[in-house]
């Protein structure tokens, strides 16, 4: 009898042992409750977002002193998989962070339209379009994301160039690059296209210097003419930069994030197409390049008649889950997360270009001042308008273009077919 009782006893002990642990912790409410809101994001765990989250929590606590807010920082690479499971189960967080564009538009069925709650914030915040579908807004924008062309002002000075006057045309730009390479030995572009992302940034950063304003607007509106010689010119330019040895070595085996930006900030390349928020921006380069050494230039004009502009869209924003018990309460939390105080802290600590256009950025240095000034005339990024399938294909054909195994005509033909297939 004694022996027979051994295994059940072990089993019970193991389960009790496991159960003991859970009893000691605070249980979250996956679906939220009147007294608690659960937020999923991938930002709140980052040290540079700490002050932003604290300010937002404080603002919300003033308005709703009895409500607890729990931030659950998820790893970004698993984020949308987990969110998809939560959405299909109908059990998940109350407030959810999204990337603007396709990521949120594909999931609006799980979200509440926020228009009635955020009317007062319309003028103060920019970037709403990235969180809007069929005329309804599903998230409050936190940051703006775009693709400025950054340059190293010190290298310009060393090459005898005026860092206040970057090239306005493509021939000038190539000549400047040649001068920098000759005097300093550095390459013109830090390029990482291992994941095929380099071409996306290139298309958006240089597109406005190639397409006419009408072509640009038509592209964004979905009326894309892939047979246009100007569209082909962008992809030919991509190939030319490689053939002219303007790019850093081995772009097809260099990762964009971390690696290509590391080349730029450690002065191994004079230019990089970067980002405005998160990574690869003026503050992110700060360990090697102080803010006054980072310049921002508009796309050089390649085709006469083009009007260069800053490509940008809404970056990240918080939305409210359809299943939340108190939508107004959750929407109030979104408003706290997009309040001026909170976004000012985010800009100051993380260097993000916040969606709040009233924030004073004058302390950020020349790069951030130029970016913010260019927002007024900026336009949505060309690559953001494309489907993820076409972007994947673009990544592959861009690598083939760099390696010389495909022609520009063939690349554009494949991309047109993918884009038209939807």
């Amino acid at each position, binding site marked *: 009898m004694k*022996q*027979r009782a051994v*295994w059940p006893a*072990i*089993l019970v002990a*193991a*389960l009790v*042992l*496991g*159960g*003991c*642990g*859970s009893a000691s*912790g*605070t*249980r*979250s409410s*996956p679906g939220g409750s009147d007294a608690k809101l*659960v937020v999923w994001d*991938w*930002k709140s*765990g*980052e*040290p540079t977002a700490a002050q932003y989250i604290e300010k937002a929590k404080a603002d919300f606590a003033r308005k709703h002193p009895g409500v607890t807010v*729990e931030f*659950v*920082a*998820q*790893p*970004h*690479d*698993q984020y949308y*998989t*987990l969110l998809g*499971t*939560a959405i*299909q*189960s109908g*059990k998940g967080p109350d407030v959810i962070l999204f990337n603007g564009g396709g990521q949120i538009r594909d999931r609006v069925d799980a979200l509440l339209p926020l228009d009635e709650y955020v009317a007062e914030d319309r003028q103060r915040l920019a970037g709403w379009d990235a969180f809007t579908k069929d005329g309804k807004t599903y998230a409050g924008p936190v940051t703006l994301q775009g693709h400025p062309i950054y340059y190293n002002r010190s290298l310009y000075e060393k090459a005898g160039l005026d860092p206040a006057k970057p090239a306005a045309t493509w021939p000038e730009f190539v000549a400047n690059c040649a001068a920098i390479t000759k005097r300093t030995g550095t390459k013109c572009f830090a390029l990482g296209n291992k994941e095929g992302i380099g071409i996306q940034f290139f298309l958006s950063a240089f597109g406005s210097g190639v397409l006419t304003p009408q072509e640009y607007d038509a592209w964004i509106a979905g009326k894309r003419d892939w047979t246009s010689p100007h569209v082909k010119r962008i992809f030919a330019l991509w190939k030319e930069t490689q053939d002219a040895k303007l790019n850093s070595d081995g772009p097809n085996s260099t990762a964009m*994030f*971390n690696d290509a930006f*590391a080349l730029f*900030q*450690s002065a191994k390349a004079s230019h990089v197409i970067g*980002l405005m928020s*998160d*990574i*690869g921006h003026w503050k*992110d380069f700060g*360990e*090697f390049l102080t803010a006054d050494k980072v310049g921002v230039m508009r796309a050089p004009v390649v085709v006469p008649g083009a009007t260069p502009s800053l490509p940008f869209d809404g970056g990240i924003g918080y939305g409210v889950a359809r299943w939340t018990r108190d939508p107004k309460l959750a929407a109030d939390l979104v408003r706290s997360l997009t309040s001026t105080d909170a976004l000012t802290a985010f800009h100051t600590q993380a260097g993000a270009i916040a969606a709040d256009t009233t924030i004073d950025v004058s302390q950020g240095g020349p790069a951030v001042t130029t970016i913010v000034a260019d927002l007024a005339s900026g336009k949505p990024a060309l690559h953001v308008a494309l489907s993820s399938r076409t972007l994947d294909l673009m990544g592959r054909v861009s690598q083939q273009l760099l390696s010389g195994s495909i022609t520009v005509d063939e690349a554009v033909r494949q991309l047109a077919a993918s884009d038209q297939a939807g």
Partner: protein
Amino acid sequence: MTSRVRPGRWLLAVPMSLLALATIYPLVFTANVAMKTRREYILDRFSLADALRWENVATAWNSVGMARYLANSVGTVTAAVVLLLLFGSMAGFALSQLRFRGSSALFLGCLAALFVPFQVIMVPLNRIMADAGLVDTYPGLVLAYVAQFLPFTIFLMTSYYRTIPTEIVDAARIDGNSVYGVYRRIMLPLGAPALLSVGILDALFCWNDVLIALLLMPSTEHRTLMVGVTSLRGQYSADIPTFASGVLIAAIPVLVIYLFLQRQIADGVAAGSTKG
């Protein structure tokens, strides 16, 4: 008298050494990066670290509460492996040695379960766990691990027990043992090498899991060590030396276990290979 090494051994030793180097290099690279400053890493990631700096390890340990995560991992993995070995060995014994209707179909069912990716069952699992009140609880995570890795355990234990002659079981029954007595007195001791191998593999599966733990343990304080390490990465970026330190912290328990049990592990793998 000098011992002569046969040339054939050298021929074998060279590729095996290269293989060993290729296996060890990622760990050495990670340890080296963990000792670097971010600046040092950006300037040259392949150079040797200037000095042994433990600041990154301390940052990784403190910034996301690794001590708590380590305890969570040790507790859940231990409980899961105990249950997996218990149920796996019982099922393996039954499917290999006991004659009953449907045993082949049951074994095939276990085999089929091996081919179902976890992503396919994520939604129903999440629903069932949530409805049972097991989301964000340690028993919930342990049960999920047992459910996920039991087919593999059963498959290996069944294969191993099939190599044991049926006459041994018959003799034990004639001697008056019950089925449970045969399992406890004969099959468990005979299955020890396989149990050790399977236990190590199960422990590694559970230890390295990120997705199940992320799905079922949403609270920050209930996370496991590997989830904690993953959370050191941002969307695009990471402080790579700190992230490498987190990876190192997660690898150390596995390495320590290997150092202490390497003889048994080698014996277990060898036993499995000759009898399986």
